[in-house]
């Protein structure tokens, strides 16, 4: 039997994690795995269980994608590929397993056949960027025993922030989709803020191409339902913020603000502002927003007020946010046709969608007409944006 697989495309602030945790709690007579890419999100999922039901149910296992790949992907059936023990994983930022640099300064990697050096560092830790590839190798060498076992251990596999998976991770997802297990994935293709893989495999589906991947690469009989409605309403953002931020991804269906009373009670006149440099410190002083920046060294950040990198803020929500845009982001505001690199686009999207009450983009603006949905911050207007900044 092929499981009832589904991917839910979620809007920022739509309650992805809560949705997954509620789905998991509904399953009582089978084993559930919840996995996600980052450790912080894993902790968030665990916390959400305690918030909702007071404990993590006995049939639910929460682990990061990497732990899952090591303990269920590699170790059970590594025997057909290599014999030495796996001593954990090493996070790598650049191409790993480099044998030597050639005259042009380009790293030449150990060949794949040299399993011990291609996939592992000298301490016996597997390189993070090659872990998924190693899992595929173990699965192939054992005649599919790896995936078959996983499907019998976990009847339900829930993946949060699925847009973070790329490269061979996608092959593993595809194999799980073909297995007896039921695969439920939740993610926002707009929020691919980390580049986690350096390999060329399935590169065209990096940067949020998960839906396209599922459509194009799975055989017809493996059905994955693509659900773009369940989680397309933001409980955090106002309709103006939804409208402006959705403009970054015109090809995806626009997100909408949830209209229920509970979500809207604090939002008087949620706004998207342009904040002139001259008004910056005045605004910080009056509204006390969270400053979102590209990196620690970004210019214009007030070191005495709280601040956070774009990527770091993913999954978080604040009442008021001020965004310190990079040059390409500024150009995009003036002209939505301007080119943005996929990661820049994703980070900008994340930054704009953190706010519950107001989001301000710090940049000077000439006399021209403001883009649709934006208004210019004027001193004295902050009175309408009640409430201190709080984070969650």
């Amino acid at each position, binding site marked *: 039997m092929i499981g009832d697989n589904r991917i839910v495309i979620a809007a920022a602030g739509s309650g992805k994690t809560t949705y997954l945790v509620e789905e998991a709690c509904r399953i009582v007579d*089978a*084993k559930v795995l919840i996995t996600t890419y980052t450790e912080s999100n894993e902790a968030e999922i665990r916390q959400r269980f305690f918030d909702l039901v007071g404990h993590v149910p006995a049939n639910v296992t929460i682990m990061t994608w990497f732990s899952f790949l090591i*303990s*269920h992907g590699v*170790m*059970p*059936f*590594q*025997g*057909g590929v290599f014999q030495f*023990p*796996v001593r954990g994983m090493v996070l790598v930022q650049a191409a790993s397993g480099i044998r030597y640099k050639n005259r042009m300064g380009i790293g030449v990697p150990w060949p794949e056949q040299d399993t011990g050096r291609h996939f592992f560092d000298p301490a016996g830790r597997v390189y993070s960027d090659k872990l998924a590839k190693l899992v595929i190798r173990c699965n192939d060498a*054992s005649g599919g*025993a790896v995936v078959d*076992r996983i499907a*019998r*251990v*976990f*009847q339900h596999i829930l993946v949060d922030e699925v847009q973070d998976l790329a490269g061979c991770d996608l092959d593993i997802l595809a194999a799980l989709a073909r297995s007896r297990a039921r695969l439920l994935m939740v993610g926002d293709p707009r929020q691919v803020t980390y580049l986690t893989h350096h390999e060329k495999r399935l590169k065209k589906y990096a940067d949020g191409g998960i839906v396209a991947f599922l459509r194009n690469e799975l055989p017809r009989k493996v059905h994955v339902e693509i659900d773009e409605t369940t989680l397309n309403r933001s409980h955090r953002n106002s309709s103006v913020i939804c409208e402006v931020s959705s403009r970054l991804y015109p090809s995806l269906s626009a997100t909408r603000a949830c209209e229920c009373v509970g979500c809207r009670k604090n939002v008087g006149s949620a706004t998207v502002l342009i904040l002139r440099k001259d008004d910056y410190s005045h605004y910080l002083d009056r509204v006390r927003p969270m400053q979102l920046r590209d990196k620690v060294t970004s210019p214009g950040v007030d070191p005495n007020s709280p601040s956070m990198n774009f990527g770091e803020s993913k999954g978080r929500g604040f009442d008021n946010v001020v965004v310190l845009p990079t040059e390409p982001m500024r150009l995009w505001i003036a002209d939505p046709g301007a080119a943005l690199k996929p990661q820049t686009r994703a980070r900008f999207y994340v930054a704009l969608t953190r706010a519950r009450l107001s989001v301000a983009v710090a940049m000077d603006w000439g006399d021209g007409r403001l883009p649709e949905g934006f208004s210019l911050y004027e001193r004295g207007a902050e009175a309408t944006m009640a409430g201190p900044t709080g984070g969650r």
Partner: protein
Amino acid sequence: MKIAKVKITNFKCYEETFTLNFNEGLNVIVGTNESGKTTILEAVYLALTGLLHGRPLKNDLTSYLFNLSTQTKYLQSLETASPLQPPAITIELFFSGSTSELAELEGDGNSEKARCSGVVYRIEFDEDNFRGPYEELVKAGALRSIPVEYYTTTMRSFARKGITARNIPIKSALIDSSSTRMQNGSDVYVSRIIRDVLEEKERAAISQAHRKLKEAFVADPNLKLINERITHAAKISQKAVSISVDLSSQTAWESSLMTYIDLIPFQYIGKGEQCVIKTKLALSAKKNAEATAILLEEPENHLSHSRLNELIADLTQQHGQKQIIISTHSSFVANKLGLDHLIVLRGGEVVRISELKSSDFFRKLAGYDTLRLALASRAILVEGDSDELVVQRAYMDAHDGRLPIQNGTDVISVGTAFLRFLELAEALKIPVVVVTDNDGDAEAVKRKYAAYDGSPTVRVCYDPDVETGPLEVKGKPFNYNTLEPQILNANSRSVLNEVLGTSAETDDQLRLHMRANKTECALAIFGSDRKIEYPDYIKRAIAP
């Protein structure tokens, strides 16, 4: 969910890897003393629970757990240029079944690299922590035993994940004659059995009740009064002195509650009754999620014949889905439980009666003789009762009047089933001697036993010369080549006349008399004060 197989390496009497497959239901391991029966039960229980003699082995490692010859080889190698690695004890359990819990334990992390569900329990050198100290120790060259202080125990699933006994869905009850007590005196095993019988909910309920009991005790007004008095009287310091119960969460209810049988604490009832009750409790576990393996050591030890019968009836009728592994050296128990389930163990060799070519034969035969052979250290196989008596007497005459059994040699009459018994003996490597007539065709006898030519354990003794003569019985030629005429050949008529109390006047008369009264003659020879001479092939058979 069953234990399909156990593999033991370097543990106690097992040096080379010892492999034993189990049946789904009943398994009866038969063997003499010191054949390694108990070691198998201990190994299975250890790999399932991490316990040996009721205590976590982790804290009780000794070099005596290791196979002696393994240890000797290792220590000797340290003196040479190519020292061996510190030896490790490995116990592998292979499980069969297809639940989600078993899938979790599945992988190829086993010695066979097989895709299977199971656990590996290892007692091994702790390389991560003690590489340095070990190097120094070896350099110092003073090693007289395996350095177990640098050893650790690990329990891993075949998926190479470190696990605890809780992760194994097969629970086990070890029922042996030892009595391992908890601190409060209650029997460790019965407490475990009771705990394993309970559902998770019931355990939580008991745990709650136990907590309440302790809290109620502490809250009692009398206790408060007493504590005030103690504090007053004790005047040791400014601080309060009080008595209370141990409220720490570590004290689990299992270790502080006692099991009673008719108001008598469990450990005070008879040993036999203890054994029966433990078995019945273990048989009564009804949980679906977990399977139970019952390990029963030599149930015959403390039980009367009738209680033993009852227990065996329970075991055979009620075991249901449970797997039972019994060790025994009682041929009664083994026979009652059925030869189909029999695993005969001998010097590391394993034979299942059900796998022998002659299994049909042994199944139909009342099992006593089969087991006699299996349990004997040496055996002489003869055809009938008369041969048995004569061989016994011949043996006594040659061995200062000691019966063969007193020297560990069993004389078994097997009728015409020599080859079937030889199959069993060969499989178990039991030294056996076959004593047989040549029945007038020595070549045929040679052909019959050709398969055992040059066998290190099987000797076939028969008279190579065929004798013929004119005597006829009822129109057919008399067979001069059976035991009785051969005895006559070895002795004189007068000697035999004296021993048998006959007065035959010719050899032929005596031949006919002996032919017609085989057993009486044999009895007479066996009981006679006078020693006689024996045919050459008998002498060869009883020679050491």
